[in-house]
Protein backbone atom coordinates (compact mmCIF):
# COMPACT_ATOMS: atom_id res chain seq x y z
CA UNK A 1 0.00 0.00 0.00
CA UNK A 2 2.72 2.37 0.98
CA UNK A 3 4.57 1.64 -2.17
CA UNK A 4 1.57 2.13 -4.37
CA UNK A 5 0.81 5.40 -2.75
CA UNK A 6 4.33 6.54 -3.16
CA UNK A 7 5.51 5.02 -6.37
CA UNK A 8 7.42 8.13 -7.11
CA UNK A 9 9.25 8.08 -3.82
CA UNK A 10 9.86 4.43 -4.02
CA UNK A 11 11.49 4.96 -7.35
CA UNK A 12 13.56 7.80 -5.98
CA UNK A 13 14.66 5.88 -2.93
CA UNK A 14 15.68 2.96 -4.99
CA UNK A 15 17.56 5.26 -7.21
CA UNK A 16 19.74 6.36 -4.39
CA UNK A 17 21.17 3.03 -3.57
CA UNK A 18 21.63 2.20 -7.17
CA UNK A 19 23.48 5.31 -7.99
CA UNK A 20 25.90 5.38 -5.13
CA UNK A 21 28.92 3.40 -5.98
CA UNK A 22 30.09 2.25 -2.62
CA UNK A 23 32.36 -0.42 -3.85
CA UNK A 24 35.19 -1.24 -1.57
CA UNK A 25 35.92 1.81 0.45
CA UNK A 26 39.50 0.90 0.23
CA UNK A 27 39.19 2.55 -3.12
CA UNK A 28 38.32 5.97 -1.76
CA UNK A 29 41.40 8.15 -1.96
CA UNK A 30 42.72 8.25 1.58
CA UNK A 31 43.33 11.24 3.80
CA UNK A 32 46.49 13.17 2.95
CA UNK A 33 47.20 11.30 -0.25
CA UNK A 34 46.50 14.13 -2.69
CA UNK A 35 48.64 17.28 -2.82
CA UNK A 36 46.98 20.48 -1.65
CA UNK A 37 46.58 21.79 -5.18
CA UNK A 38 44.51 18.81 -6.29
CA UNK A 39 42.44 18.76 -3.11
CA UNK A 40 41.36 22.30 -3.96
CA UNK A 41 40.82 21.66 -7.66
CA UNK A 42 38.46 18.75 -7.05
CA UNK A 43 36.65 20.52 -4.26
CA UNK A 44 36.05 23.52 -6.49
CA UNK A 45 34.81 21.28 -9.29
CA UNK A 46 32.45 19.42 -6.94
CA UNK A 47 30.85 22.33 -5.13
CA UNK A 48 28.65 23.50 -8.04
CA UNK A 49 27.13 20.03 -8.26
CA UNK A 50 26.36 20.04 -4.54
CA UNK A 51 24.72 23.46 -4.82
CA UNK A 52 22.78 22.35 -7.87
CA UNK A 53 21.64 19.28 -5.93
CA UNK A 54 20.64 21.27 -2.86
CA UNK A 55 18.59 23.67 -4.97
CA UNK A 56 16.71 20.87 -6.69
CA UNK A 57 16.07 19.11 -3.36
CA UNK A 58 14.83 22.35 -1.85
CA UNK A 59 12.35 22.72 -4.69
CA UNK A 60 10.86 19.30 -4.06
CA UNK A 61 10.73 19.85 -0.29
CA UNK A 62 8.74 23.03 -0.77
CA UNK A 63 6.07 21.03 -2.52
CA UNK A 64 6.37 18.01 -0.25
CA UNK A 65 7.94 18.45 3.18
CA UNK A 66 8.16 14.69 3.81
CA UNK A 67 10.82 14.49 1.15
CA UNK A 68 13.46 15.67 3.59
CA UNK A 69 12.89 12.72 5.91
CA UNK A 70 12.95 10.40 2.94
CA UNK A 71 16.30 11.74 1.83
CA UNK A 72 17.67 11.47 5.34
CA UNK A 73 16.70 7.82 5.53
CA UNK A 74 17.95 7.33 1.98
CA UNK A 75 21.36 8.65 2.95
CA UNK A 76 21.49 6.32 5.92
CA UNK A 77 20.42 3.49 3.64
CA UNK A 78 23.27 4.26 1.23
CA UNK A 79 25.73 4.28 4.11
CA UNK A 80 24.51 0.87 5.29
CA UNK A 81 24.70 -0.58 1.79
CA UNK A 82 28.31 0.49 1.59
CA UNK A 83 28.94 -1.51 4.74
CA UNK A 84 27.32 -4.68 3.41
CA UNK A 85 29.36 -7.44 1.95
CA UNK A 86 28.09 -9.27 -1.06
CA UNK A 87 29.00 -12.86 -1.68
CA UNK A 88 31.46 -13.27 -4.53
CA UNK A 89 32.92 -16.13 -6.49
CA UNK A 90 36.31 -15.96 -4.91
CA UNK A 91 34.75 -16.39 -1.50
CA UNK A 92 36.12 -13.06 -0.47
CA UNK A 93 33.62 -10.28 -0.22
CA UNK A 94 33.14 -7.09 -2.09
CA UNK A 95 30.85 -4.19 -1.39
CA UNK A 96 27.62 -3.63 -3.22
CA UNK A 97 27.80 -0.81 -5.66
CA UNK A 98 24.90 0.88 -7.15
CA UNK A 99 25.82 2.87 -10.12
CA UNK A 100 22.59 2.70 -11.94
CA UNK A 101 18.95 3.17 -12.08
CA UNK A 102 18.77 5.47 -9.14
CA UNK A 103 20.43 8.31 -10.92
CA UNK A 104 17.84 7.93 -13.61
CA UNK A 105 14.89 7.90 -11.26
CA UNK A 106 16.31 10.24 -8.71
CA UNK A 107 18.25 12.73 -10.67
CA UNK A 108 22.01 12.58 -10.41
CA UNK A 109 22.37 15.98 -8.74
CA UNK A 110 20.50 14.86 -5.63
CA UNK A 111 22.87 11.95 -5.47
CA UNK A 112 25.82 14.29 -5.38
CA UNK A 113 24.52 15.73 -2.10
CA UNK A 114 23.83 12.37 -0.47
CA UNK A 115 27.09 10.96 -1.79
CA UNK A 116 29.00 13.79 -0.20
CA UNK A 117 27.28 13.29 3.16
CA UNK A 118 27.88 9.56 3.12
CA UNK A 119 31.55 10.13 2.28
CA UNK A 120 31.86 12.54 5.21
CA UNK A 121 30.56 9.91 7.62
CA UNK A 122 32.66 7.18 6.06
CA UNK A 123 35.68 9.37 6.76
CA UNK A 124 34.71 10.37 10.30
CA UNK A 125 33.22 7.08 11.50
CA UNK A 126 35.11 4.48 9.50
CA UNK A 127 38.31 6.23 8.41
CA UNK A 128 37.58 5.40 4.80
CA UNK A 129 38.47 8.27 2.50
CA UNK A 130 39.18 11.58 4.15
CA UNK A 131 38.37 15.23 4.69
CA UNK A 132 41.03 16.69 2.41
CA UNK A 133 40.19 14.20 -0.31
CA UNK A 134 36.45 14.69 0.09
CA UNK A 135 36.23 16.85 -3.03
CA UNK A 136 38.01 14.30 -5.21
CA UNK A 137 36.04 11.36 -3.83
CA UNK A 138 32.71 13.13 -4.13
CA UNK A 139 33.58 14.03 -7.69
CA UNK A 140 34.18 10.42 -8.68
CA UNK A 141 31.47 8.78 -6.56
CA UNK A 142 28.84 11.47 -6.38
CA UNK A 143 29.20 13.22 -9.71
CA UNK A 144 30.79 11.06 -12.42
CA UNK A 145 29.22 7.77 -11.29
CA UNK A 146 25.63 9.01 -11.06
CA UNK A 147 25.81 11.09 -14.23
CA UNK A 148 27.37 8.25 -16.19
CA UNK A 149 24.72 5.82 -15.03
CA UNK A 150 21.98 8.27 -15.79
CA UNK A 151 23.19 8.85 -19.33
CA UNK A 152 23.83 5.17 -20.03
CA UNK A 153 20.38 4.21 -18.80
CA UNK A 154 18.72 6.88 -20.94
CA UNK A 155 20.70 5.88 -24.01
CA UNK A 156 19.90 2.19 -23.75
CA UNK A 157 16.22 2.92 -23.26
CA UNK A 158 16.21 5.31 -26.18
CA UNK A 159 17.69 2.69 -28.42
CA UNK A 160 14.92 0.35 -27.36
CA UNK A 161 17.02 -1.91 -25.16
CA UNK A 162 15.24 -4.02 -22.52
CA UNK A 163 14.85 -2.76 -18.97
CA UNK A 164 17.20 -5.30 -17.43
CA UNK A 165 19.97 -4.45 -19.85
CA UNK A 166 19.59 -0.74 -19.18
CA UNK A 167 19.76 -1.39 -15.45
CA UNK A 168 22.70 -3.71 -15.77
CA UNK A 169 24.73 -1.40 -17.97
CA UNK A 170 23.91 1.68 -15.95
CA UNK A 171 24.98 -0.07 -12.75
CA UNK A 172 28.17 -1.64 -14.00
CA UNK A 173 29.37 1.17 -16.25
CA UNK A 174 28.68 3.78 -13.61
CA UNK A 175 30.79 1.67 -11.28
CA UNK A 176 33.69 1.31 -13.68
CA UNK A 177 33.66 4.98 -14.65
CA UNK A 178 33.86 5.96 -11.01
CA UNK A 179 37.17 4.16 -10.73
CA UNK A 180 38.38 5.43 -14.03
CA UNK A 181 37.85 8.87 -12.54
CA UNK A 182 39.78 7.90 -9.44
CA UNK A 183 42.59 6.71 -11.66
CA UNK A 184 42.59 10.03 -13.50
CA UNK A 185 42.69 11.92 -10.25
CA UNK A 186 45.67 9.92 -9.06
CA UNK A 187 47.46 10.11 -12.42
CA UNK A 188 47.06 13.88 -12.59
CA UNK A 189 48.46 14.23 -9.09
CA UNK A 190 51.31 11.78 -9.61
CA UNK A 191 52.55 11.84 -13.21
CA UNK A 192 55.29 9.31 -13.96
CA UNK A 193 58.87 10.49 -14.38
CA UNK A 194 58.95 8.91 -17.79
CA UNK A 195 55.82 9.15 -19.87
CA UNK A 196 54.11 11.65 -17.56
CA UNK A 197 50.39 11.57 -16.97
CA UNK A 198 49.65 9.05 -19.71
CA UNK A 199 52.05 6.47 -18.33
CA UNK A 200 50.79 7.08 -14.84
CA UNK A 201 47.18 6.78 -15.93
CA UNK A 202 47.92 3.42 -17.52
CA UNK A 203 49.35 2.22 -14.21
CA UNK A 204 46.46 3.45 -12.09
CA UNK A 205 43.85 2.22 -14.54
CA UNK A 206 45.40 -1.20 -14.38
CA UNK A 207 45.31 -1.23 -10.61
CA UNK A 208 42.18 0.74 -9.75
CA UNK A 209 39.80 0.31 -12.69
CA UNK A 210 40.56 -3.04 -14.34
CA UNK A 211 40.35 -4.89 -11.05
CA UNK A 212 36.91 -3.40 -10.61
CA UNK A 213 35.47 -4.99 -13.74
CA UNK A 214 34.48 -8.34 -12.22
CA UNK A 215 33.02 -6.52 -9.24
CA UNK A 216 31.16 -4.15 -11.53
CA UNK A 217 29.63 -7.10 -13.35
CA UNK A 218 28.54 -8.93 -10.25
CA UNK A 219 27.10 -5.76 -8.81
CA UNK A 220 25.30 -5.03 -12.05
CA UNK A 221 23.68 -8.44 -11.72
CA UNK A 222 22.72 -7.84 -8.10
CA UNK A 223 21.18 -4.52 -9.08
CA UNK A 224 19.06 -6.16 -11.75
CA UNK A 225 18.01 -8.78 -9.22
CA UNK A 226 17.09 -6.16 -6.61
CA UNK A 227 15.22 -4.17 -9.20
CA UNK A 228 13.13 -7.19 -10.17
CA UNK A 229 12.33 -8.00 -6.56
CA UNK A 230 11.31 -4.44 -5.89
CA UNK A 231 8.94 -4.25 -8.79
CA UNK A 232 7.35 -7.51 -7.63
CA UNK A 233 6.34 -5.88 -4.35
Amino acid sequence: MLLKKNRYWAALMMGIFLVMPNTAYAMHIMEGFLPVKWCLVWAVLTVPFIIWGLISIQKIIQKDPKFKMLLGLAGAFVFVLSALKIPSVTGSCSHPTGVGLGAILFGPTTMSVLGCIVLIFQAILLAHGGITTLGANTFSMGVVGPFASYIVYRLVKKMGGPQWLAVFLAASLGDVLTYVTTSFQLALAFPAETGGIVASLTKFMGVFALTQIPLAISEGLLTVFVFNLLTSY
Partner: protein
Amino acid sequence: MSVNVLEAQHLYFSYPDGTIVLRDLSVAIERGKKTAILGANGTGKSTFLLHLIGTLKPSKGKIFFNQQEVQYSRTSLLALRSKVGFVFQDPDTQLFSASVWQEVSFGPLNLGWTEEKVKEMVTKALRITDTTHLKDRPTHSLSYGQKKLISIADVLAMEPEVIILDEPTASLDPQYTIHILNLLNEINKRGTTVIMATHDVDMAYAWADSIMIMKDGIIIKKGNPVEVFLDDELLNQSSLTKPFVLDIFNKLQLNGYLPEGITIPRSRQQLFEIIGRYAKNSRL
Protein backbone atom coordinates in the same frame (compact mmCIF):
# COMPACT_ATOMS: atom_id res chain seq x y z
CA MET B 1 21.61 -40.23 22.87
CA SER B 2 22.54 -38.14 25.84
CA VAL B 3 20.04 -36.11 27.75
CA ASN B 4 21.70 -32.80 26.90
CA VAL B 5 21.03 -31.44 23.45
CA LEU B 6 22.98 -28.21 23.86
CA GLU B 7 25.72 -27.38 26.26
CA ALA B 8 27.81 -24.32 26.93
CA GLN B 9 31.14 -24.62 28.72
CA HIS B 10 32.87 -21.61 30.23
CA LEU B 11 31.67 -19.12 27.64
CA TYR B 12 33.20 -15.68 27.61
CA PHE B 13 32.13 -12.99 25.23
CA SER B 14 32.95 -9.33 24.98
CA TYR B 15 32.52 -6.72 22.30
CA PRO B 16 35.61 -5.35 20.57
CA ASP B 17 35.34 -2.17 22.64
CA GLY B 18 35.80 -4.23 25.80
CA THR B 19 32.23 -4.47 27.14
CA ILE B 20 31.97 -7.91 28.70
CA VAL B 21 28.64 -9.60 27.99
CA LEU B 22 29.16 -13.22 29.01
CA ARG B 23 31.57 -14.34 31.70
CA ASP B 24 32.26 -17.98 32.36
CA LEU B 25 28.77 -19.14 31.48
CA SER B 26 28.28 -22.90 31.71
CA VAL B 27 24.96 -24.62 31.33
CA ALA B 28 23.33 -27.65 29.75
CA ILE B 29 19.95 -27.76 28.04
CA GLU B 30 18.04 -30.99 28.16
CA ARG B 31 16.57 -32.68 25.14
CA GLY B 32 12.81 -32.57 24.68
CA LYS B 33 12.20 -30.05 27.44
CA LYS B 34 10.78 -26.55 27.53
CA THR B 35 13.42 -24.24 28.93
CA ALA B 36 12.91 -20.56 29.77
CA ILE B 37 15.84 -18.20 30.27
CA LEU B 38 14.87 -15.28 32.48
CA GLY B 39 16.64 -12.06 33.23
CA ALA B 40 16.25 -8.29 33.05
CA ASN B 41 17.00 -6.40 29.84
CA GLY B 42 20.69 -6.24 29.11
CA THR B 43 21.82 -9.28 31.08
CA GLY B 44 23.04 -11.03 27.95
CA LYS B 45 20.13 -13.37 27.21
CA SER B 46 20.09 -12.65 23.48
CA THR B 47 23.86 -12.75 23.26
CA PHE B 48 23.86 -16.18 24.85
CA LEU B 49 21.16 -17.45 22.48
CA LEU B 50 23.09 -16.21 19.47
CA HIS B 51 26.01 -18.33 20.66
CA LEU B 52 23.84 -21.43 20.56
CA ILE B 53 23.43 -21.11 16.81
CA GLY B 54 27.00 -20.09 16.18
CA THR B 55 26.15 -16.57 15.07
CA LEU B 56 28.37 -15.20 17.76
CA LYS B 57 31.66 -16.88 18.49
CA PRO B 58 32.75 -16.93 22.12
CA SER B 59 36.04 -15.24 22.92
CA LYS B 60 36.70 -18.25 25.15
CA GLY B 61 34.77 -21.43 25.89
CA LYS B 62 32.88 -24.04 23.92
CA ILE B 63 29.41 -24.94 22.72
CA PHE B 64 28.35 -28.54 22.25
CA PHE B 65 25.44 -29.74 20.15
CA ASN B 66 24.57 -33.41 20.63
CA GLN B 67 27.90 -33.90 22.39
CA GLN B 68 29.78 -32.53 19.36
CA GLU B 69 31.82 -29.40 19.87
CA VAL B 70 30.59 -26.65 17.55
CA GLN B 71 33.26 -25.70 15.04
CA TYR B 72 33.09 -22.36 13.33
CA SER B 73 33.78 -23.58 9.84
CA ARG B 74 31.22 -22.89 7.16
CA THR B 75 30.04 -26.47 6.79
CA SER B 76 29.72 -27.28 10.46
CA LEU B 77 27.79 -24.07 11.06
CA LEU B 78 25.44 -25.01 8.26
CA ALA B 79 24.98 -28.41 9.83
CA LEU B 80 24.26 -26.88 13.23
CA ARG B 81 21.75 -24.41 11.85
CA SER B 82 19.88 -27.06 9.95
CA LYS B 83 19.15 -28.64 13.34
CA VAL B 84 18.70 -25.62 15.55
CA GLY B 85 16.12 -23.02 14.54
CA PHE B 86 15.99 -19.47 15.81
CA VAL B 87 12.98 -17.14 16.01
CA PHE B 88 13.92 -13.49 16.46
CA GLN B 89 12.07 -11.09 18.70
CA ASP B 90 11.01 -8.65 16.04
CA PRO B 91 9.26 -10.48 13.21
CA ASP B 92 9.72 -7.46 10.98
CA THR B 93 13.41 -8.11 10.72
CA GLN B 94 13.01 -11.82 10.28
CA LEU B 95 10.47 -11.74 7.46
CA PHE B 96 12.06 -10.51 4.25
CA SER B 97 10.22 -12.22 1.43
CA ALA B 98 7.39 -10.78 -0.61
CA SER B 99 4.80 -13.45 0.19
CA VAL B 100 4.15 -15.78 3.11
CA TRP B 101 4.65 -18.86 0.99
CA GLN B 102 8.03 -17.65 -0.29
CA GLU B 103 8.99 -16.64 3.22
CA VAL B 104 8.32 -20.01 4.79
CA SER B 105 9.95 -21.91 1.92
CA PHE B 106 13.21 -19.94 2.26
CA GLY B 107 14.76 -22.17 4.91
CA PRO B 108 13.69 -25.55 3.49
CA LEU B 109 14.94 -24.57 0.02
CA ASN B 110 18.31 -23.69 1.51
CA LEU B 111 18.45 -27.18 3.03
CA GLY B 112 18.54 -28.51 -0.49
CA TRP B 113 15.41 -30.63 -0.17
CA THR B 114 13.43 -31.65 -3.24
CA GLU B 115 10.66 -29.33 -4.30
CA GLU B 116 8.20 -32.02 -3.31
CA LYS B 117 9.51 -32.19 0.22
CA VAL B 118 9.76 -28.40 0.54
CA LYS B 119 6.12 -28.03 -0.43
CA GLU B 120 5.12 -30.69 2.04
CA MET B 121 7.06 -29.12 4.90
CA VAL B 122 5.84 -25.59 4.19
CA THR B 123 2.25 -26.80 4.05
CA LYS B 124 2.76 -28.64 7.31
CA ALA B 125 4.35 -25.64 9.04
CA LEU B 126 1.50 -23.41 7.94
CA ARG B 127 -1.01 -25.95 9.18
CA ILE B 128 0.60 -26.32 12.59
CA THR B 129 0.77 -22.57 13.09
CA ASP B 130 -2.78 -22.24 11.80
CA THR B 131 -1.80 -19.77 9.08
CA THR B 132 -2.68 -21.70 5.92
CA HIS B 133 -5.19 -19.01 4.98
CA LEU B 134 -2.39 -16.43 4.88
CA LYS B 135 -0.21 -18.29 2.42
CA ASP B 136 -0.68 -15.95 -0.56
CA ARG B 137 -0.65 -12.73 1.44
CA PRO B 138 2.25 -10.29 1.16
CA THR B 139 4.21 -10.43 4.42
CA HIS B 140 4.10 -6.70 5.03
CA SER B 141 0.30 -6.70 5.07
CA LEU B 142 0.09 -9.04 8.07
CA SER B 143 -0.74 -7.98 11.60
CA TYR B 144 1.97 -8.15 14.23
CA GLY B 145 0.61 -11.37 15.71
CA GLN B 146 0.34 -13.00 12.29
CA LYS B 147 3.91 -12.02 11.50
CA LYS B 148 4.99 -13.65 14.73
CA LEU B 149 3.25 -16.89 13.74
CA ILE B 150 4.87 -16.83 10.31
CA SER B 151 8.29 -16.28 11.84
CA ILE B 152 7.72 -19.47 13.84
CA ALA B 153 6.46 -21.32 10.74
CA ASP B 154 9.68 -20.17 9.01
CA VAL B 155 11.71 -22.22 11.41
CA LEU B 156 9.29 -25.10 11.89
CA ALA B 157 9.38 -25.81 8.16
CA MET B 158 13.04 -26.73 8.54
CA GLU B 159 12.17 -29.52 11.00
CA PRO B 160 14.71 -28.54 13.61
CA GLU B 161 15.56 -30.60 16.69
CA VAL B 162 15.68 -27.45 18.77
CA ILE B 163 13.78 -24.19 18.45
CA ILE B 164 15.11 -21.11 20.19
CA LEU B 165 12.85 -18.08 20.60
CA ASP B 166 13.87 -14.63 21.77
CA GLU B 167 11.04 -12.97 23.70
CA PRO B 168 8.31 -14.73 21.72
CA THR B 169 5.41 -13.01 23.47
CA ALA B 170 6.68 -9.43 23.71
CA SER B 171 4.20 -6.88 22.33
CA LEU B 172 1.49 -9.50 21.81
CA ASP B 173 -2.02 -9.15 23.18
CA PRO B 174 -3.28 -11.77 25.67
CA GLN B 175 -5.03 -13.85 23.03
CA TYR B 176 -2.01 -14.13 20.75
CA THR B 177 0.19 -14.86 23.74
CA ILE B 178 -1.99 -17.83 24.63
CA HIS B 179 -2.04 -18.90 20.99
CA ILE B 180 1.75 -18.83 20.75
CA LEU B 181 2.24 -20.68 24.03
CA ASN B 182 -0.17 -23.42 22.96
CA LEU B 183 1.69 -23.66 19.69
CA LEU B 184 5.00 -24.03 21.49
CA ASN B 185 3.55 -26.78 23.69
CA GLU B 186 2.30 -28.54 20.58
CA ILE B 187 5.72 -28.27 18.94
CA ASN B 188 7.34 -29.59 22.10
CA LYS B 189 4.98 -32.55 22.23
CA ARG B 190 6.10 -33.49 18.72
CA GLY B 191 9.56 -33.98 20.19
CA THR B 192 11.25 -30.64 19.59
CA THR B 193 13.27 -29.03 22.34
CA VAL B 194 12.01 -25.49 22.93
CA ILE B 195 14.13 -22.74 24.49
CA MET B 196 12.96 -19.20 25.06
CA ALA B 197 14.34 -16.03 26.53
CA THR B 198 11.79 -13.84 28.28
CA HIS B 199 11.32 -11.41 31.12
CA ASP B 200 7.74 -12.43 31.74
CA VAL B 201 7.97 -14.37 34.99
CA ASP B 202 4.30 -15.33 35.09
CA MET B 203 4.44 -16.81 31.65
CA ALA B 204 7.74 -18.62 32.24
CA TYR B 205 6.48 -20.04 35.54
CA ALA B 206 3.37 -21.49 33.95
CA TRP B 207 5.02 -22.71 30.78
CA ALA B 208 8.54 -24.00 31.37
CA ASP B 209 9.88 -27.35 32.53
CA SER B 210 13.17 -25.78 33.43
CA ILE B 211 14.04 -22.21 34.38
CA MET B 212 17.40 -20.52 34.07
CA ILE B 213 18.02 -17.18 35.72
CA MET B 214 20.57 -14.99 34.05
CA LYS B 215 22.33 -12.04 35.56
CA ASP B 216 25.34 -10.02 34.41
CA GLY B 217 26.34 -12.47 31.73
CA ILE B 218 26.11 -15.64 33.73
CA ILE B 219 23.41 -18.18 34.58
CA ILE B 220 23.13 -17.93 38.32
CA LYS B 221 20.48 -20.59 38.81
CA LYS B 222 18.91 -23.46 36.93
CA GLY B 223 16.08 -25.60 38.22
CA ASN B 224 12.40 -26.43 38.05
CA PRO B 225 10.04 -23.45 38.17
CA VAL B 226 8.78 -23.90 41.71
CA GLU B 227 12.23 -24.36 43.16
CA VAL B 228 13.64 -21.33 41.35
CA PHE B 229 10.79 -18.97 42.07
CA LEU B 230 10.54 -19.82 45.76
CA ASP B 231 14.03 -18.40 46.20
CA ASP B 232 13.21 -14.81 47.18
CA GLU B 233 16.77 -13.69 47.49
CA LEU B 234 17.63 -14.95 44.04
CA LEU B 235 14.68 -13.09 42.51
CA ASN B 236 15.62 -9.92 44.28
CA GLN B 237 19.21 -10.18 43.14
CA SER B 238 18.21 -10.59 39.52
CA SER B 239 15.50 -7.89 39.72
CA LEU B 240 12.73 -10.30 38.84
CA THR B 241 9.36 -10.42 40.58
CA LYS B 242 7.74 -13.53 41.95
CA PRO B 243 5.12 -15.12 39.67
CA PHE B 244 1.74 -13.94 40.82
CA VAL B 245 0.21 -17.41 41.10
CA LEU B 246 3.01 -18.59 43.34
CA ASP B 247 3.07 -15.39 45.34
CA ILE B 248 -0.62 -15.46 46.14
CA PHE B 249 -0.55 -19.17 46.88
CA ASN B 250 2.23 -18.56 49.38
CA LYS B 251 0.35 -15.72 51.00
CA LEU B 252 -2.79 -17.82 51.25
CA GLN B 253 -0.86 -20.62 52.92
CA LEU B 254 0.97 -18.23 55.19
CA ASN B 255 -2.27 -16.69 56.36
CA GLY B 256 -3.92 -20.00 56.99
CA TYR B 257 -6.39 -19.99 54.12
CA LEU B 258 -4.81 -23.04 52.52
CA PRO B 259 -3.14 -26.02 54.21
CA GLU B 260 0.60 -26.66 53.95
CA GLY B 261 1.99 -29.55 51.95
CA ILE B 262 -0.36 -29.46 48.97
CA THR B 263 0.80 -29.41 45.35
CA ILE B 264 1.94 -25.95 44.37
CA PRO B 265 -0.14 -24.58 41.47
CA ARG B 266 1.61 -23.52 38.26
CA SER B 267 -1.24 -21.69 36.53
CA ARG B 268 -4.17 -19.49 37.36
CA GLN B 269 -6.43 -22.40 36.54
CA GLN B 270 -4.71 -24.72 39.01
CA LEU B 271 -4.79 -22.08 41.70
CA PHE B 272 -8.50 -21.52 41.26
CA GLU B 273 -9.10 -25.23 41.46
CA ILE B 274 -7.25 -25.43 44.76
CA ILE B 275 -9.17 -22.45 46.09
CA GLY B 276 -12.40 -24.15 45.12
CA ARG B 277 -11.40 -27.45 46.67
CA TYR B 278 -10.44 -26.14 50.07
CA ALA B 279 -13.32 -23.69 50.17
CA LYS B 280 -15.74 -26.57 50.31
CA ASN B 281 -13.88 -28.21 53.14
CA SER B 282 -13.89 -25.08 55.21
CA ARG B 283 -17.61 -24.69 54.77
CA LEU B 284 -18.38 -28.14 56.10
